[in-house]
């Protein structure tokens, strides 16, 4: 029994050599283009199978091409068979690259069976080939002529062909199921090439020899030569396929991850069993988790169960609870093939809650913008109004400071003049934006500027404007020269820090000082006068009583004289008693006239301004007016000067005013005091009082709006003027000394009264002689 098994054809030797070289360099040649660290194990195994297969075939072709069957040849052939018998499972595994498990048990068992079968046949062939050749089936010896070729051909058909067909089915299924058009293209091309290559290999190895020889006579053929060559091409195809679809294609993977990381939607990539593989930062943020935590979970745990995670699909408004908060998501699921048969899935979800939130936010912001715009208009309006007001205020202020009856200026924090009124400009010139010489600035002003406390001092100036001391001023004043007195005020405008702005006022006090002096003098006079008045009243009471006593004594003396004869010894004594009484009377009259004369002599009439006294009286009464009663002084001619005793004048006015106020106590009303000059051309007759002689008078009218007086009352009001009784008794008018005072001052009065309307006292006080 001889079997060729190997061909000695130079073409076949050449082809086998090329195939060996190709398979040896295949790894390096093709794998260089990919960047994966290592090829998947099925492809590596397939390359190793090819190397062994081609090596054995080349050795066989070179050295064992003869018909003789030697042990070495059989061993070599068996080694070759051990290699290709595994090609089927390897190709199948290449076709199912997505299964992560390296070797599935079925394929391992299948491989083991095939190896065992090859080894069994090889052992039989080495020890006794007849065990095989003499196998008879129904009287025939099918293995008699070419036992090895037939057995190994069967092995090929049993162990390899079904797996190749299964691989084709896998590829076909992949073509049909894939949604990715690129994948479909690749798969279709691979499938087509695969089918064509195997058809060619089968045709040349089995079908053509059978058709040519009409029977299977593998005499001169090289066993499985075409399959051997095609397997190289399949290896190349497998590597190409793997390279083209591999997830290990670094550039595309890198690009994809970059895009995924940049995208604003959440993206989670998960395996076909749902295990989470990766997630982009947005997704991590949405679920508030880390990638390590997420990788321990399944996609089904995160999203609701009614989503089909392993189909390309699109779901709208899915509610998902994240940390007890309901979020709405738009969900899209994509499938991506990472190898010929494996795929992974990508879930893309956009948080609608956020989208809605941002839409609402944009709407709100738009509304706010409109409001802001309206606010802006309003503020602009307000600003305009404020500006207008500010202008008005400025104008008001300007008018006010110019109307001030004294000098006004203001300086800023640095001591620069900011404002001056016309009076100040007229006095000192326009100092706007200028400094004062530091030596000229008073300590008061500096203190006010630094301490924030208002300061003031009195300054004295001569007519020429020279500043003088108080003593110098007093000297000039005594000499009767004009001296101006100024009150200088420095008012700081207090803010956070000193120095402060300062307002300065320079008030001319000359007139006021003069008036004050006059008033002081009048007050002093009044005091002295009132003390003398007390003395006079005391003496008056004494004189009255004593006069009565003497009057009685004189009267009794007269009666006694009438009752006895002149020659009666007692007559002379009575006359002496009467004389003594007369002397007492004279001495009393001297005393009285001394007192009366003294009151007038002690306080000589002086010239004074009555309006000061009137204002004093008004002020005093204003402080204690009964409810509903007002007191006003109006139409007071302040230029009038009168002669008289100040205290008397004040007393008379006070008494009349008091009387008027008492008359209005219950009904309320107004008491008006007026004063003007009146010249009487002829004597004015006044009822119940001495006529008023012609002359120049200050006429002081004191009118009340009380009930007025009827004729009877009017008559009686004069009586209380003369009573010595205490105030509050009798008619209670309390004007005990008014008439005497008037007489002393050569003054007079009359009364006009209208029932229901009120009473007016007109006091005529002589003006000073001009």
């Amino acid at each position, binding site marked *: 029994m001889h079997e060729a098994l190997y061909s000695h054809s130079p073409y076949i030797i050449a082809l086998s050599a090329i195939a060996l070289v190709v398979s040896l360099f295949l790894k390096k040649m093709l794998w260089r283009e990919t960047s994966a660290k290592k090829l998947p194990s099925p492809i590596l195994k397939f390359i190793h199978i090819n190397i062994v297969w081609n090596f054995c075939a080349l050795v066989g072709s070179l050295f064992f091409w003869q018909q003789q069957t030697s042990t070495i040849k059989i061993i070599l052939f068996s080694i070759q068979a051990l290699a290709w018998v595994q090609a089927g499972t390897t190709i199948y595994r290449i076709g199912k690259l997505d299964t992560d498990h390296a070797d599935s048990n079925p394929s391992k068992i299948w491989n083991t069976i095939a190896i065992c079968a090859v080894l069994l046949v090889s052992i039989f062939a080495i020890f006794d080939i007849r065990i095989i050749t003499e196998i008879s089936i129904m009287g025939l010896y099918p293995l008699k002529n070419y036992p090895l070729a037939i057995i190994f051909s069967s092995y090929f058909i049993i162990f390899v062909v079904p797996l190749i067909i299964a691989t084709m089915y896998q590829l076909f299924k992949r073509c049909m199921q894939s949604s990715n058009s690129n994948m479909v293209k690749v798969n279709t091309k691979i499938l087509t090439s695969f089918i064509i290559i195997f058809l060619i290999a089968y045709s040349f190895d089995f079908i053509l020899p059978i058709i040519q020889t009409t029977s299977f006579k593998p005499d001169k053929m090289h066993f499985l030569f075409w399959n051997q060559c095609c397997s190289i091409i399949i290896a190349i195809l497998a590597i190409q396929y793997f390279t083209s679809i591999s997830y290990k294609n670094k550039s595309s993977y890198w690009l994809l991850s970059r895009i995924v990381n940049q995208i604003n939607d959440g993206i989670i990539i998960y395996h076909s069993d749902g295990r989470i593989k990766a997630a982009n930062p947005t997704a991590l943020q949405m679920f508030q988790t880390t990638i390590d935590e997420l990788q321990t979970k399944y996609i089904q745990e995160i999203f609701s169960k009614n989503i089909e995670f392993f189909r390309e699909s699109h779901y709208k408004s899915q509610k998902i609870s994240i940390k007890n908060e309901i979020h709405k998501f738009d969900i899209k699921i994509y499938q991506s093939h990472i190898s010929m048969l494996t795929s992974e899935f990508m879930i893309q979800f956009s948080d609608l809650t956020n989208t809605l939130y941002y839409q609402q936010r944009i709407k709100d912001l738009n509304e706010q913008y409109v409001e802001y715009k309206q606010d802006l208009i309003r503020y602009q309006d307000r600003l305009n109004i404020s500006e207008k007001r500010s202008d008005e205020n400025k104008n008001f202020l300007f008018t006010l400071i110019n109307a001030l009856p004294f000098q006004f200026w203001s300086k800023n924090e640095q001591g620069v003049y900011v404002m001056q009124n016309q009076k100040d400009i007229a006095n000192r010139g326009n100092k706007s934006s200028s400094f004062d010489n530091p030596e000229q600035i008073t300590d008061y002003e500096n203190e006010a500027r630094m301490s924030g406390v208002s300061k003031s001092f009195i300054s004295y100036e001569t007519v020429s404007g020279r500043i003088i001391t108080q003593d110098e001023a007093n000297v000039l004043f005594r000499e009767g020269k004009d001296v101006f007195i100024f009150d200088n005020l420095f008012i700081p405008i207090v803010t956070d820090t000193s120095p402060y702005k300062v307002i300065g006022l320079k008030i001319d006090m000359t007139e006021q000082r003069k008036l004050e002096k006059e008033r002081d003098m009048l007050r002093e006079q009044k005091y002295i006068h009132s003390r003398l008045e007390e003395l006079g009243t005391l003496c008056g009471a004494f*004189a009255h009583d004593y006069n*009565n006593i003497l009057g*009685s004594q004189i009267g009794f003396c007269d*009666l006694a004289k*009438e009752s006895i004869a002149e020659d009666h010894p007692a007559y002379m004594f009575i006359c002496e008693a009467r004389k003594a009484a007369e002397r007492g009377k004279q001495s009393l009259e001297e005393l*009285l006239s001394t007192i009366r004369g003294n009151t007038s002599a002690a306080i000589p009439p002086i010239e004074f301004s009555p309006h000061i006294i009137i204002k004093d009286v008004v002020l005093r009464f204003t402080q204690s007016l009964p409810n509903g009663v007002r007191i006003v002084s109006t139409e007071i001619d302040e230029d009038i000067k009168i002669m008289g005793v100040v205290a008397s004048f004040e007393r008379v006015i006070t008494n009349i005013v008091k009387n008027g106020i008492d008359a209005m106590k219950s009904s309320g009303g107004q008491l008006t005091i007026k004063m003007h000059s009146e010249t009487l051309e002829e004597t004015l007759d006044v009822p119940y009082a001495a006529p008023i002689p012609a002359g120049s008078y200050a006429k002081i009218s004191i009118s009340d709006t009380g009930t007025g007086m009827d004729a009877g009352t009017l008559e009686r009001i004069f009586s209380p003027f003369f*009573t010595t009784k205490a105030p509050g008794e009798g008619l209670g008018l309390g004007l005990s000394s008014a*008439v005497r005072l008037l007489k002393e001052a050569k003054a007079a009065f009359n009364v006009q009264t209208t029932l229901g309307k009120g009473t007016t006292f007109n006091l005529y006080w002589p003006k000073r002689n001009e």
Partner: protein
Amino acid sequence: MSTILIIDDDEQFNLMLKSALTIKGYNVDTASNGKEAKALYQSNVYDVIITDIIMPNVDGYEVILDLRRMGMGDRIIAVSGGGRTAADDYLITAKHFDVAATFNKPVDLQALRAKVEEIIQKH
């Protein structure tokens, strides 16, 4: 017989005047103030009333004004010794009230008697 009322707060003066007039045969009543006098002249008829001006309680002016309202103003003689001011001041006012006569204290008795007689004769 004519009846005269004398009003004065000084008892001695009252007594003196009463004596002076009683001697001349007049009926004389006395009162020490206006209040007492009022009680008298409202119940009796007097031909002449002599009154002081300055008195406690009701003073001479009130008496004068009261009598004047009764139509007896011209039967009054006002007498004053003066006080805080000279007696004239008071008496001028009394004159304005249309009294028949005024006398300063000390009184000239002759003149007073004459005036009393004159008033009585007039009526």
